[in-house]
C-alpha cells in the first residue's frame, strides 16, 4: 500500500511538474514578443538559477542556496537591462559586468576539497574542479576560439558585427583552455577566479553585443520556439531509449562475449557460418520434394487458366478468385517446400515473414470484404478483433494447450489432438466412416449443384470455386473409406488400435507453421480493422459506376476496390513484416527455439543471456535491426507521401 501511495504521489508530482514546465515554456514565449524585457529578465534569472543549481548538483561549487539566489537576482537584473537598453556601449558594459560578477561568484565558491563517497569496495572520489592552468595552452585555445569566431563571421556573410562572434568563440576557446585541458584537482583559488571570471565576462559581453530584436524577429522567435517545446521531451526519450542503446549494441557487436576485447567482424562471421542459424547445404533436396513439384504444377495450372480466361475476354490474363487461388496455393506449396528443406534460424524467420504476412493480410482482407455491409458486421468484426487484446505470451500459452499431445494410452486434452483422434475413431468404425462419407457426399452434391448453377449463369468464379472446394472433400471421402484418417492406427505387433496424436510443437519441420498460426490468429484482427476502414472509404460512385457498366461483384472487387485500397495494403504488409521479423514471445513460450523453430530474436536472447555471449547476441540484434530498417524507411516515406 505504501508503494501504491508513493507511486501515486510520484505520478501526481511528475504530472504537475511537467505540466508547469510545459505550460510555463509556452507562456514564456507568449510573453516574448509583447514584453521583450520581461522575457529577457526571466531568461536571465532562469539561466542564473539553473547554471548555479547544476554546478552545485555536480559538486562544482560549495555553498548552494544563497549564491544561487544571488545569481538568480543578478541574472534577472542583467536580463532586464539587456532587454531594454538600446545603447551599444551601455549594453556591453552591463553584459560584461554582470557576467564577470557571476563568474567571480563561481570562482570564489569552487570546491577545493576532494570528496569521498561510500565505503569499502564501493568507495569513489570526486576531485575538485579547480583547474591547473597552463598559460601557453590557454592562450592557444583562446586564439583558436577567436579564429573560429572570425571564420564563422566571414562565412555568415559579415552581416552582424564581428565583435560578438569573436567574444562568443573566444570565450569558448578560453573555457576549453582553462577547464577542458589541464588536469583538475589543484586548490589554486587564483586559477578558479581567473578561469571563471573571464568565462563569465566573455559570455556576458557576447550577450551585451546583441541587439533588442525588431518586431519581425520577435514574431519569428515566438513561432519558431514552439516546435522545440513540443519536440524536446520526445527527442530526449527517443535518444535515451533508442538511439543510445542502438549505438551501444552496434559497439558491443564488435567486442567479444563479455564485451571486453575487440574482435572485428568475428561475431558476424560466426553468425553466418553457424549451421543452426543458416544452413542451405541440402538445397538440392528442394527439387525432389513432392510439395515443390506439386506447387509448380498448381501454379502452371492457374497461369494456363488465367491465360485462357483472359484471351476470351481480350486481356492477357484474368485475375479472379478462380485463377488466383491455384496460383497462390502453388506459391505457398513451393515456398513451404523451400523453407522446409533449408533450415536454420534465418530461414525460419523468412518463413515466418512470408507466411504470416501473406496469410494474415489475405484473411483480414477477406473478412473485411465479406463482413462489409452484412447484417452482423460489428459482431463478427469484434470477435475476430478480440485476439488483438491478448499478449503474445498469453496467446502462446493458450495455443500450447490447444496443441498439447498426451501419450497414446491417455485421453487427449488438447483440442486439436482430441479432434484428430476422434476423426481416427470415426474412420476406424464401420458405421462411423459410412456416416461420415455420406455426409461428405451430400456436401459434394450441394457443391456440384452450385457449380452447375454457376456454369449455367456464366458465373465462372462460382463454378470454379465450387469445384475447388469439392476436391478436398472428395479427398476426405477417399481417406475415410480407403487408408483411414485421423490419429488412430492399428499397432501391428499387438493388433490393438491405438491413438496417434500429432506432436504439433515438436514434429519438424511443420511445427513452425503451427507456431505461425498463433501470430496469424492475433494479427488477422488488426489487418481486418484497417482494411475494413479502407474499404468503407472507397467512393460509392466508383462502385456504382462499375455496376452500371455491367461488372460483377467479383470484377468490381478485383478491379475497383483492390486498386483503391492498394496504399493501405502496402502499409499493412510493411507493418506486419516488421512485427513478424522480431517475433520472439510466441517461440520462446511454446518451444524455446527447440525442434528447429528458432527465430532471430530468440537466437539473440539465447546467445546473449543463456550462453552469455553479448558479442554474438548484439551481432544478431544488429542483423535484425538492419533487416527491418529499409522496411521502416519505406513505410515512413509512404506515410509522408500519403500525408501530402
Amino acid at each position, binding site marked *: 500500500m505504501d508503494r501504491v501511495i508513493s507511486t501515486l504521489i510520484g505520478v501526481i508530482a511528475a*504530472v504537475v511538474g511537467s505540466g508547469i514546465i510545459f505550460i510555463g515554456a509556452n507562456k514564456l514565449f507568449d510573453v516574448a514578443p509583447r514584453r521583450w524585457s520581461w522575457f529577457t529578465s526571466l531568461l536571465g534569472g532562469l539561466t542564473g538559477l539553473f547554471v548555479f543549481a547544476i554546478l552545485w548538483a555536480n559538486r562544482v561549487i560549495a555553498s548552494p542556496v544563497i549564491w544561487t539566489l544571488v545569481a538568480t537576482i543578478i541574472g534577472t537584473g542583467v536580463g532586464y537591462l539587456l532587454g531594454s537598453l538600446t545603447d551599444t556601449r551601455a549594453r556591453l558594459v552591463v553584459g560584461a559586468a554582470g557576467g564577470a560578477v557571476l563568474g567571480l561568484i563561481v570562482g570564489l565558491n569552487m570546491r577545493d576539497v576532494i570528496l569521498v563517497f561510500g565505503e569499502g569496495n564501493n568507495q569513489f572520489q570526486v576531485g575538485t574542479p579547480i583547474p591547473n592552468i597552463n598559460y601557453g595552452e590557454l592562450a592557444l585555445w583562446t586564439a583558436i576560439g577567436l579564429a573560429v569566431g572570425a571564420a564563422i563571421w566571414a562565412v555568415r556573410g559579415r552581416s552582424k558585427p564581428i565583435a560578438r562572434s569573436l567574444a562568443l568563440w573566444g570565450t569558448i576557446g578560453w573555457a576549453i583552455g582553462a577547464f577542458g585541458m589541464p588536469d583538475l584537482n589543484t586548490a589554486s583559488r587564483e586559477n578558479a577566479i581567473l578561469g571563471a571570471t573571464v568565462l563569465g565576462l566573455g559570455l556576458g559581453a557576447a550577450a551585451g553585443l546583441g541587439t533588442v530584436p525588431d518586431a519581425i524577429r520577435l514574431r519569428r522567435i515566438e513561432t519558431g520556439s514552439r516546435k522545440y517545446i513540443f519536440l524536446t521531451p520526445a527527442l530526449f526519450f527517443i535518444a535515451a531509449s533508442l538511439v543510445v542503446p542502438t549505438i551501444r549494441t552496434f559497439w558491443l557487436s564488435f567486442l567479444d562475449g563479455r564485451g571486453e576485447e575487440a574482435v572485428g567482424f568475428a561475431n558476424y562471421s560466426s553468425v553466418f557460418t553457424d549451421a543452426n542459424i543458416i544452413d542451405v547445404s541440402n538445397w538440392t533436396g528442394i527439387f525432389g520434394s513432392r510439395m515443390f513439384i506439386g506447387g509448380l504444377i498448381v501454379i502452371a495450372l492457374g497461369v494456363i487458366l488465367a491465360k485462357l480466361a483472359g484471351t476470351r475476354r481480350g486481356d492477357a490474363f484474368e485475375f479472379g478468385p478462380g485463377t488466383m487461388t491455384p496460383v497462390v496455393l502453388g506459391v505457398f506449396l513451393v515456398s513451404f517446400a523451400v523453407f522446409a528443406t533449408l533450415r536454420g534460424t534465418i530461414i525460419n524467420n523468412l518463413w515466418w515473414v512470408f507466411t504470416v504476412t501473406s496469410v494474415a493480410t489475405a484473411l483480414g482482407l477477406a473478412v473485411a470484404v465479406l463482413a462489409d455491409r452484412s447484417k452482423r458486421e460489428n459482431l463478427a468484426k469484434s470477435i475476430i478483433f478480440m485476439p488483438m487484446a491478448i499478449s503474445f505470451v498469453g496467446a502462446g500459452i493458450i495455443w500450447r494447450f490447444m496443441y*498439447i499431445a498426451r501419450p497414446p494410452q491417455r485421453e487427449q486434452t488438447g483440442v486439436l489432438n482430441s479432434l484428430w483422434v476422434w476423426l481416427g475413431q470415426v474412420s476406424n468404425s464401420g458405421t462411423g466412416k459410412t456416416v461420415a462419407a455420406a455426409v461428405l457426399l451430400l456436401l459434394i452434391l450441394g457443391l456440384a449443384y452450385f457449380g452447375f448453377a454457376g456454369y449455367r449463369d456464366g458465373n465462372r468464379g462460382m463454378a470454379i470455386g465450387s469445384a475447388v472446394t469439392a476436391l478436398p472433400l472428395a479427398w476426405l471421402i477417399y481417406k475415410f473409406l480407403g487408408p483411414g484418417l485421423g490419429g488412430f492406427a492399428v499397432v501391428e505387433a499387438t493388433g490393438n488400435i491405438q491413438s496417434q496424436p500429432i506432436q504439433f510443437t515438436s514434429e519438424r519441420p511443420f511445427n513452425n507453421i503451427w507456431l505461425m498460426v498463433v501470430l496469424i490468429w492475433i494479427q488477422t484482427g488488426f489487418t481486418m480493422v484497417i482494411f475494413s476502414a479502407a474499404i468503407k472509404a472507397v467512393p460509392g460512385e466508383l462502385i456504382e459506376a462499375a455496376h452500371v457498366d455491367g461488372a460483377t461483384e467479383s470484377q468490381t472487387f478485383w478491379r475497383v476496390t483492390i486498386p483503391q485500397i492498394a496504399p493501405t495494403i502496402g502499409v499493412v504488409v510493411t507493418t506486419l513484416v516488421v512485427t513478424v521479423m522480431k517475433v520472439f514471445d510466441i517461440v520462446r513460450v511454446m518451444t524455446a527455439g527447440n525442434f528447429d523453430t528458432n527465430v532471430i530474436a530468440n537466437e539473440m536472447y539465447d546467445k546473449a543471456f543463456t550462453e552469455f555471449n553479448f558479442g554474438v547476441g548484439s551481432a544478431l540484434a544488429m542483423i535484425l535491426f538492419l533487416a527491418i530498417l529499409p522496411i521502416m524507411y519505406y513505410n515512413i516515406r509512404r506515410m509522408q507521401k500519403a500525408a501530402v
Partner: protein
Amino acid sequence: MLMRRKVFSYGAFLLAFAMIAAACGDSEPAAPPETVVVTETSIVTETSVVTSIVTETVVAENPLAGTTVTVFGPESSDTEAGAFQAALDLFAAANDMTISYTGARDFSDQINVQVAGGNPPDIGILPQPGKLADFARSGDLVALPDAVTDLVQSTTPEGLWSLGNVDGVQYGIPTKADLKSLVWYRPALFTEKGYAVPTSWDELNTLTDTMIANGDTPWCVGIDSGGGATGWPFTDWTEDLMLRFHGGDVYDQWVMGPNNGGIGFADDRVVQVFDAIRNLWDKPSGTYAAGGTIATTLFGDNAPPLEDGTCLMHRQANFFASFFPAETVYGPEGVDVFYFPPVTADIQPVLGGGVFPVAFQDRPEVLAVMEYMATSDYANARQRLQKLANGGAADTVSGFLSPHLEADKSLWTPLEQSFLDILAKAELFRFDGSDNMPTPVNAEFWRSATAFVNGDIDAATATANIDANWP
C-alpha cells in the same frame, strides 16, 4: 467544447508521460516471471520451535532491523520455494528485517539478464559451479567474510565447498546437496509383478525388456524444463553413465574439455553413452511421456504417472520428492528409490548436484543472511519446513538434503540419512559435470540433447555441435 477536449488530451498526454517517467524511476527490482507463494501454515506451526534457536544469537540493538534482502534462485515448486522462504523468514523475523525469495524455472537465463543489466539480486542461488566461477572472475560476486569462509570450510565436505571456491577465495556456500544416481519406483508394485531391483546396468536393461514384454511401461522420462534449460535431465543421464561406463578419470577429462587436455563430446566414449540412453528410452512402448514426447514433457510431470503405476521407474535426483503430492507415502508401501545400478559391483559411482548461494551485494545484512545459510540452524529449519510442506508425516521424504556436517540428522528419515551417507562416503563422487562446463558448452549441451532426444539429429551431429562451443 473544443478547448476542453484539448485540455483533456494535454492532461492524458502528461499523465502517460509521467507514468512512464515514474515507471523508469522506480527502483523496485524487476520481478521474475514466476513468483512463489509461501505456505503460511508451515511458518506458523514451526516458528516457535526454531526462532528460539535463532534469537539467542541476536543482540539487543539489532543493526539489521528494517533492512531488506532479495534472494533469487531456481527452486520454484511450492514445496521447495515455500520451505526456503519460510526458513529465511525465521531469520528475518528474529532480526526484524525482510528477506524475499523469488524462484524462477528459467533462473539460469534470468540471472544472466539481471547481472548483465547491472541489477542482480542481493543473493543468487547458483546451481552451476561453472557459472559461479564465471561470475567470480568477472568481479560480480562478493567474497565471503573470513569468519563465514572458516565456518563453511569446517562444516561441509571439501568436495562440495571447493566448488564454491574460485582461485582460493570462497564465494559460494553449499547449502543443498542432491544425490542424482537414484531411480524412483514403487516397491509394492515391483513385488506384485515379480520384478527385482536391478543391481547392474545389464540387469537394468533386461528388466526394461521384461517389463515391455509383460505389457508394462518401464520408464517415465521428460526433459522439458520450460525454457532455456530444457534438456538438462538428459545431461544428468549422460553424466551418470559416463561415470559408470568409463570411470572418474575419463569423466574428469570430459568435463575439462578438448582444449584443456581433456576429451571432447565427439570422443567415441561420449557418443556411446548418448546412443545407450536413446536405445533405452526409444524402445517401443518402453517410455511413458506425459507431454506426448520426451522432449516436450516437463520433468516434474513424471511424478503422477510413477505414482499411479502408469510407468514403473524414473531416474531423478532426491529432490524429486518435492514433486510428489503432499499425501504421498514414502518407503516400501509407497514410492521409494533404488541406487542407479553400476556396470560392475566393484565401482559404485555417485553423481551429485547442489546449489551455492552467492552474494552479489556487499551490504552487512546480505552477508548476515549468507552467514545464516552457512549454519546448521538454517539446514535444520529448512528440513523441518520442507518436510512439513511435503506432507509432514514421520516417513515423509522432503526432497531437501543438507551437506552440513552438524545438521541434526534425526530430522531426516532413515532413507534420506542413507542418501547423506552415500554422499559422504562415496568412493567415486562427482559433481554434475555439465554444470561445471563453461556456460556456452552447457547451453549447447541442453539444446543439442533436446534435438537428439527428439530424433532430429544423430549422436555424431549432436556431439559435434556441442564441441564447437568449447572456449
